[in-house]
């Protein structure tokens, strides 16, 4: 293909811009600046507390609903109620209405672990990082497994004798999972150039 008049002009313009920019010395960013320092495996492990839905990140340890009930009564019941249904803070227990997912229709329906939470691993992750508010981050991993087992059992999601640990927790099926859908609003979601 031969060069058209337009091609010649645009090529010349590009050359001109580059030259002018070069003349005033616009600095180019390096591939890396070298600021900061390498993180050690120990300091990563010290704060890498997140847990993923497939169980990645779950620590060693174990717990049962019976063990969790004792801890719950002492450290949780004052805010969430004796059985997890009374409040005054978030209501944690309850499978109702059991059929469908009518939260949009009913503003009074509490969003419990049993009827709304889509992943069991989230219970462990959240309790370990943030509960109880009077002493966040104070529970041992065994205590968090036990509390998780207690809450899942109270929501009729696992049997009373089930042991929750790094292999069993991610396998707990959550009824609400099927109702969650990712962002579906129409595009474009970004400003046009």
């Amino acid at each position, binding site marked *: 293909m031969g060069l058209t008049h337009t091609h010649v002009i645009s090529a010349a313009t590009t050359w001109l811009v580059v030259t002018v920019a070069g003349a005033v010395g616009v600095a180019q960013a390096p591939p890396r600046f070298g*600021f900061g320092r390498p*993180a050690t495996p120990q300091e990563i492990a010290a704060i*890498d507390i997140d847990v*993923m839905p497939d169980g990645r990140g779950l620590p060693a340890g174990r717990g049962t609903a019976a063990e969790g009930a004792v801890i719950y009564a002492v450290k949780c019941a004052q805010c969430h109620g004796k059985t997890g249904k009374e409040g005054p803070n978030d209501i944690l227990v309850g499978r109702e209405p059991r059929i469908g997912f009518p*939260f949009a229709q009913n503003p009074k329906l509490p969003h419990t672990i049993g009827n709304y939470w*889509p992943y069991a691993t989230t219970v462990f992750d959240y309790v370990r990082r*943030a509960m109880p508010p009077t002493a*966040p981050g104070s529970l041992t991993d065994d205590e968090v497994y036990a509390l998780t087992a207690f809450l899942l059992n109270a929501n009729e999601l696992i049997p009373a004798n089930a042991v929750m640990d790094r292999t069993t927790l991610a396998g707990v099926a959550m009824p609400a999972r099927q109702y969650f859908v990712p962002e579906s609003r129409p595009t474009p979601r970004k400003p046009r150039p």
Partner: protein
Amino acid sequence: MKVTRRDLLAGAAGAVVLGQTTRAQTQTPVDPTKVRGKPTSAMGQRARAEKVQRLVRGNISSTPHQDLMGIITPSDLHFERHHGGVPEIDPANYSLLIHGLVDRPMVFSLADLKRFPSVSRIHFLECSGNLGRVAGPETTPGLLAGLTSTSEWSGVPLATLLKEVGVQPKGTWLLAEGSDAAVLTRSVPMAKALDDALIAYGQNGEAIRPEQGYPARLFLPGWEGNASVKWLRRIEVSDAPFMTREETSKYTEPFADGTARMFSFQMDARSLITYPAFPNTLERGWVEIKGIAWTGAGRIRRVEVSTNGGATWAAAQLQEPVLSMAHTRFRHLWNWTGGEAVIMSRAVDETGYVQPTRAELLKLRGPGTAIYHMNPITGWVVQATGRVIYKEEAWG
């Protein structure tokens, strides 16, 4: 009549000039040209008569839009929402860890973050749940929609830091974690992180306020505020979202079709008339209707105002510059000749999205979902007496 100390001081202020500077500083003089003013000071203060404050409700405080002008929210009036209180962090001990699916896990001190090339951008931040749910007639603009504020944010693009650590090809999401008592976490798509995300350490020309994430926070322009994790201590790059409590049991929206939407990050276009509104009282004659509009999709293209309850609409004037993902000030001249009137505004953004009515939102979303991402057209009733009240609308 009992003579108070105040009466004595007020009476003395006009007569006594010399040697009374201490007294003049504590009482407003009758004639400021007859009293030497205050000396210079290391820290400025608002005028004594200005009593502007955030509206505090539990662990939320709202920006008093009815008291503000222009588009920049004074930093001490920026709204607050936190889940474990405002932590006190020593900037000398602050560090940000970036690890996970990266070639070089790194730790950055605050000084390190400030060495990188910086940017400053003016953006709004808005809580996903920014609609006063139970709002009687005596609802102010700040109570109705005070969980949005605009600041100039300064910091380092997150893309710069991610380039520094070397994101691996499988790194499609990242976890942002705060160092507050909630150790709050949110998952963020890598595309946003590489596009316009900031690690912000500056707000309106100075260090970011403790309530806004001192000494450094994540800032995701146009996205729901909860995802812009404050007091940021850690970023972990991963191949999937983490499904944290704040993106599953909270900050998800049930829909009338029996589903719940998650990762609905972007805030849609909204407008709010900030004057006249409750608790103003109007006098007949010309009124400049004022307000703000904003959208997470980019720029506001147009704001329309109705002074007859939505029967007809007129284009409002937009204050330049209209910035992307920032509050935009609008104004509309109106001659109020008396009689009851309902004034409303609606925003249209550059994608053509039109701010919906409450009825349209509720039809799609249902009354049980009316917490997050609610951006309905709202109105104010100008009563025949000139008193202005919030136009109440039923939920469902």
